[in-house]
C-alpha cells in the first residue's frame, strides 16, 4: 500500500502513508491515540473509502470487489461478536459471508475453534464467555476464511495472560503458515516479540519504520537515564540544566521523571548529578535503561505509547 490519505473535513487523519508486508511477516503499526492507526487500518481493510492511495494484496486492488475483500481478515479492536449467538453460530455466519459452505465451512469452523481453544465451548452463547474467550472468538472470526492479509487491531486489550499467550501462539502459527499480518498494539513487548518490522505513526504519517534493531540503532545512543525528581517546577529547571550538558541529545519529562538521551549515557551520569546538585535539585531515583522500542517511540513522538 502506498500514498494512503484520508481527511475528515479539514482534519487530516492519514497523510500519505505506505508500507509493504511480505508473506509470513508481521508488521507492527505503533502510534499514540489519535495518530491515525484505526483510520489507516480501516482503509486497508476496505471499510473506509480512501481520498488517495492504493492498497493491493497479491497484486489485486482491494477495491476490485468481493474476491479482493475475501483476501483480508480483520479483527477489530472492540469485540465484534453477536453475543446472543453461540461461538459456532458466529463462525458459521462469518464463514458463509465469506462464501464458505458445506464441508469447507464445517472444517474451517472446527479448525478456527480449535486454533483459539474454544472447541469445548463451541455451542455456548458468546455472552457467557469471559473477556479473554470473547477476544479469542473475535480472532477466530477474522481468520476463519484463511485470509492472505490479517489485520489485528490491538487484539490483546484487556485479556488475561492465558488468552494473551494463546493469541500470541496463534499469530505466530499464522505467520509461519505464510499469512501477512498487520498488527497494532499499545504493548511494546508484543511488538518486540511478534513484529519483524515496525512503523511508528503519528499525526497521520509514518515517521519511522524498520526492524527493531534498525529503529533502536537509529536513536544513536546506547542508554537512557531516568531521574526521579518529584512533581513541581523542579522538572522544568532540571530539563533546562541538563539540556545544556555536553553529550546530551535530548531531555523529556514523563510523570515526575526527566528522561535523558545521551551518548554513552552511563558515563554521563556523574556530570548529570553534579549539574543537578549545583542547581539545588536532588534526584530521588536514578535508573539507567538500555534503549528499546519504547525509547524509539518516546523519542520519535515525544509521548509514551500509553498516552
Amino acid at each position, binding site marked *: 500500500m502506498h500514498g494512503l490519505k484520508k481527511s475528515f473535513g479539514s482534519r487530516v487523519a492519514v497523510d500519505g502513508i505506505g508500507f509493504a508486508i511480505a508473506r509470513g511477516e508481521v508488521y507492527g503499526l505503533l502510534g499514540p491515540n489519535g495518530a491515525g492507526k484505526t483510520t489507516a487500518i480501516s482503509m486497508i481493510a476496505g471499510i473506509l473509502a480512501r481520498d488517495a492511495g492504493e492498497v493491493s494484496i497479491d497484486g489485486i486492488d482491494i477495491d476490485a470487489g*468481493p474476491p479482493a475483500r475475501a483476501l483480508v481478515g480483520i479483527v*477489530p479492536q472492540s469485540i*465484534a461478536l453477536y453475543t446472543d449467538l453461540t461461538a459456532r453460530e458466529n463462525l458459521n*455466519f462469518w464463514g458463509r*459471508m*465469506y462464501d464458505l459452505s458445506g464441508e469447507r465451512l464445517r472444517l474451517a469452523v472446527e479448525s478456527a475453534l480449535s486454533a483459539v481453544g474454544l472447541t469445548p465451548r463451541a455451542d455456548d452463547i458468546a455472552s457467557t464467555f469471559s473477556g479473554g474467550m470473547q477476544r479469542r472468538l473475535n480472532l477466530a*472470526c477474522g481468520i476463519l476464511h484463511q485470509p492472505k492479509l490479517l489485520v489485528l487491531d490491538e487484539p490483546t486489550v484487556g485479556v488475561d495472560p492465558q488468552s494473551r499467550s494463546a493469541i500470541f501462539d496463534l499469530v505466530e502459527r499464522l505467520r509461519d503458515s505464510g499469512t501477512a499480518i498487520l498488527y497494532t498494539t499499545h504493548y511494546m513487548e508484543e511488538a518486540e516479540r511478534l513484529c519483524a518490522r515496525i512503523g511508528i505513526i503519528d499525526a497521520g504519517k509514518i515517521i519511522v519504520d524498520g526492524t527493531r534493531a534498525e529503529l533502536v540503532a537509529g536513536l544513536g545512543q546506547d542508554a537512557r537515564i531516568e531521574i526521579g525528581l518529584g512533581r513541581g517546577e523542579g522538572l522544568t529547571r532540571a530539563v533546562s540544566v541538563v539540556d545544556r550538558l555536553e553529550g546530551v541529545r535530548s531531555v523529556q519529562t514523563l510523570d515526575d521523571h526527566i528522561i535523558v538521551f545521551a551518548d554513552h549515557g552511563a558515563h554521563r551520569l556523574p556530570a548529570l548529578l553534579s549539574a543537578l546538585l549545583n542547581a539545588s535539585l536532588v534526584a530521588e531515583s536514578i535508573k539507567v535503561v538500555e534503549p528499546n522500542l519504547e525509547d524509539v517511540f518516546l523519542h520519535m513522538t515525544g509521548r509514551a505509547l500509553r498516552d
Partner: protein
Amino acid sequence: MHHAWLICLKDLRQRLRDHTALIVAIVAPLALTALIGMSLSGSQGIRMRLGIADLDGTAVSHAFVEFVQRPWLKGIVVVQKIASRTAAQAAVERRDVDCAVVIDQGFGNAASDDKSKSIEILAVGNAQFALQATRALVQDFLQRVAANRVDQPPVASVTPRSPGGSLRMIDFFAASMTVLFLTFAVLSGVRALQAEVDSRTILRLIASPADPIAIVAGKFAALLLVGLTQMSVMIVATSLLFGTRWGNPLPLAALVATSVLMAIGLTAFLMSLAKNAEQGTAMAAIVISLLSIVGGHFLPPQGLPDIFETLARLTPNGQAFYGFVDLSAAGRNGSIVTIAQPLLFTGVVGVAGSVFAAFRARSALQRIT
C-alpha cells in the same frame, strides 16, 4: 442477494432468541387486547338507548326512526318511542334512555318544501358519548334527507365517529394494541441494528465481501419481516380468539405494509438521535409511550370531542391505528380510498425516517472508523 439473505436470517435468529421481544410483539398486545376490550364491553359492542318523540308523524320523521333501526345498527341503538317532549325530557333525566330526540311538528313538511329543518336532541351533561353519537346520527340523517337519499347504505368514512358504528371495543383495541406494540417490536430490531454499530460487528460486515446494498437490504428485510410477522400473527390471533373484524383484506395488507414501514422509520429516526443503543431504546420508549397517549390508543373515539381524534391523526401511530379502525368499521366497503390518508402518511413517515437514519448511520460509521 445471497449475502442479504444471510444477514436477514441471522437477524431473525437473533430476534427469535430474544424472548422479551417475543413477549412484547405477540403476548403483551394479545393479553392487553383481551383485558381492555373484554373489561370495557365484552364482545357485545356498544349499546345506546335512544328515546324518540315523533311529534311530526310524517313519512320523513318515520324515516328517521327506521334510519336508526337499520340492521346495521341492530343491538347498538335501542329505540324507545316516547309520546311527548315532556316525557322525553323526563326519560332522559331518569336515565331511562341515554339520549332522546324530539321531532317537532312541521319537520316533514319543511323537508318536503326544502326548507330549513332540525331535530332537537335531549341529553344530560354527563352523557357525552350518547350526545355525540346521537348528534352524529342526526347529522347523517339530515344530510341524507337534503340529498334525498335516506335509504342509501351508510357512508364508511363517518362510521368510526358514529355511536359504535360497526366497530366494537374489541376491534378498536385489537387495532390499537397491534399498532402500539408493532412500534415496540420493531424497536427491538432497530435497537439490535444500533447495537451492531456499537459493537463494531458492522465493521466486519462492511469489510466482508458483501455489497453495502446487500447489508442494508438484509437488515431492512429482517426488520420488515419482524414487523409483518408480528402484525400478521396479531391479525390472525385476534380474529380467531376474539372474532375481531379487520376489514377488507387487500387494503388491510397495504396498510399493514405501510404501518410496518412507519414503525421502522419512526424507531430508526429516534434511535439515530441517540449516542448508543441503550440511550436510544430509553428515548424511543418514552417517545412511543407519549405518542401512544396522543395517538388515542387507550381512548375509543366515540363520545370524545373531535379534537382527540384530530390530535391522534397528527401522530404517525395514530394515523396507522385509525386507518385500521376505519377499515374495520367500513367492513366489506373498505377500500384503498377509505384509508388513503393513513397509507400516505405512514408511508411518508417510514421512508423519511429510514432515510434520515441511514444518513445518521453513515456519519456514525465515519466516526468509529
